[in-house]
């Protein structure tokens, strides 16, 4: 067990190094550089700037320096937010993205499980048809359409009520979180609902459920102990990849709802070729992802005894 964990962690470090190198190369392959601006600067000023940011050295040397800094956990200073360290940027903005992501996952999994169970219970009846209709919407509508519609709905709601029930954009209080995280989690929720529905139906037809019923167990007990519990298993299985997807894929929601998350910074950084921020965020997200995957794999070992860790 310990050997396995250590092995995975070492592999994780290699993966992160791989990510860092890939990012470094991809970024420097882009023509242009973060120093250029709308206003051309004199060659002297340019030289001063390059020296300040260490871009005057050969690429190989920059790479070595960069890896050295990375090993010390120093991502450097942002090129566009010129006074801020990339570490600061990540420290301040990742919690926002993470909050959004966690809430979205919670909404998605709870909603998915509840709706899925409901549709299975009322199979082919009105609730089932209604929910499945929304599920289809959730799966097939692009997230930016949802985000725009979500915000519009908020404006209309507040307009209708005559007071501001929920803020239409921004970040800072609990009320700011609700709609953005719902929008973010919608796609996953739809997917999980579908998954839950089919796994519920499979279990309804299963032998052990029939046995449980035949034994005369109380209905509530059968439902929670046997049906729900077993149906949730496949849902939990797909949660792992979803977590990573949601926390890194929140650009759309962040930009529509003016939320100061890390995703927005990354997109801006790419557009501005802000080398340090690009590197910092990819390496950070990459490590985060690797860690999550390792954690999920380790957890499987505990949850499902059939999975044997090497």
């Amino acid at each position, binding site marked *: 067990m310990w050997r396995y964990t250590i092995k995975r962690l070492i*592999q994780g470090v*290699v*993966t992160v190094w*791989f*990510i860092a190198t*890939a*990012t470094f190369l*991809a*970024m420097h*392959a*882009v*023509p242009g550089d973060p120093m250029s601006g709308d206003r051309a600067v004199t060659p002297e000023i340019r030289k001063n700037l390059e020296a300040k940011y260490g871009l005057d050295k050969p690429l190989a040397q920059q790479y070595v320096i960069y890896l050295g800094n990375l090993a010390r956990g120093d991502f450097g200073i942002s090129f566009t937010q010129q006074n801020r360290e990339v570490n600061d940027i990540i420290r301040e903005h990742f919690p926002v993205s993470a909050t959004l992501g966690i809430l979205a996952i919670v909404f998605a999994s709870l909603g998915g499980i509840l709706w899925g169970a409901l549709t299975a219970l009322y199979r082919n009846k009105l609730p089932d048809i209604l929910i499945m209709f929304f599920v*289809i*919407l959730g*799966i*097939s*509508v*692009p*997230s*930016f*359409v949802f985000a*725009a519609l979500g915000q*519009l709905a908020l404006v209309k709601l507040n307009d209708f009520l005559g007071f501001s029930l929920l803020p239409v954009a921004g970040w800072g209080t609990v009320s700011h979180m609700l709609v953005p995280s719902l929008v973010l989690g919608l796609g996953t929720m739809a997917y999980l609902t579908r*998954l839950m529905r*089919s*796994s519920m*139906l*499979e279990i309804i037809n299963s032998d052990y459920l029939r046995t449980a019923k035949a034994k005369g167990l109380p209905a509530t007990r059968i439902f929670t102990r046997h049906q729900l519990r077993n149906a949730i298993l*496949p849902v939990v*299985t*797909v949660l792992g990849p979803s977590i*990573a*997807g949601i926390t*890194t*894929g929140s*650009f*759309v929601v962040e*930009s529509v709802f003016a939320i100061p998350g890390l995703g927005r910074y*990354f*997109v801006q950084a*790419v*557009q501005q070729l802000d080398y340090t921020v*690009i590197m910092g*965020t*990819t390496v950070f*997200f*990459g490590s985060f*992802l*690797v860690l999550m*995957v390792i954690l999920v794999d380790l957890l499987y070992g505990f949850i499902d005894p059939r999975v044997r860790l090497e």
Partner: protein
Amino acid sequence: MVSSNPQTEPGLDDFAPLAVEQRRQQLSRPSLSYWQDAWIRLKANRRAIVSLYIVIALLLFTLLGPLVWRVDPSAQDLDQVSRAPGAERMVTLAAPYRPWNGETVLPGSRDLRLAYPANTQAVRMIWDPVPGASAYRIYRDIVPALAGEPLGLPIAQTLTGTETRYEDRLDLRAETYFYTVVALDAAGAEMGSRQALSVTPVAVITVAEARSRGLAPPSEPLNVGDKVRFKLHPLGTDYLGRDMLARLMHGARVSLFIGIVAPLLFVSFGVAYGSMAGFLGGRVDQIMMRFADFVIALPFLLFMILFKIAFGIGPGQSGILPMIVALVMLSWPGTARLVRGQILQVREEGYVSAARLLGARTNYLVMRHMIPNTLGVILVTLTFAVPSAIFTEAFLSFIGMGVAPPTPSWGGMSNEGIKSMLIHPHELLFPAILISITVLAFNLLGDGLRDALDAKMRSRE
């Protein structure tokens, strides 16, 4: 079809043949190959069949649509910008626009008045000078002015107090406009004096424009004042007056191309990679799979953006290729892992060992057992990869990194449509609906295939 022949068993002659039963046996259970069986199961799945038809319809729309609806998707018509389907198409012909030198052809001598008949080329108005005015500010509104309420859009301000005319050319439509002219005092503050006018311009285009757009047969003489009809745009036009239907068809080429080609490529690469790892096994397999794990660990969207930028788009290129390359580079490991797993599993199956014992050659093993048993999984992965590729394209369009203009794509079109969602919903609605239908169809088809090809796989990812 390796089957033993029961007829050659000894002692058969001792019994009377049961011809009837034999025939019944043949009829009730025709020999079915794996694929025939799958096809029957797929046919029984109504949703999957409907989605299959939808997919076929989409392909027809994309491939045959432009042959039927021969409208240039990049032809702009600034006289018909953002028209909803079924908008008024009648238009009057007018002389070409000439700058206004200030002359007046309409009678009238008081207040704010028109100098020329108003049309969508220009609304020319003059007004009475106000004593003490240093300048005039001209407002235009689409609702009648109310006392104490703002006067609408401040479209212009004259530079001096002696200038008492204004020509409005800003985005004129055949709607009623309410103009108000307010005199400004020396300090630039509004004086009490207001003059108002309401105008409904006539929709016009020039004879030359009508000719160049082929609004009338070349033999028909066209005169100023005649009425012609604009070209029909069944689904309306976009923000540059381009035909939505034609753009949707051409956008389908991009979106479906990316949606189908990218998955095909990365799935085939993944299959090759995964089966190689699976076949070779051992150390090579270990190394190959570790590399696949590395690629999986890359934050997908971040690298998608980064790679797309790094590969770059040349002038005049649509940028589809870099997008596909980036998609392929990042998406293959999923399939590779899946296929490797399948191969390893199948290799150990009893029937493969049996076949091997019976002396089957590798070629036979691969063609007869390995491929059919993994192809189901591959096919399912493929159908699910389509929607995700289409979504990726749409997402990139949203952050302004989609295909380059003027190539239309559904993602790019819906992103443009979102901006004007409230006033021109059709610009968002049609591309969004097409994206949804495509995504849905492939999802349901994938579901159906999964059920049909491997009943055990149902409800698993």
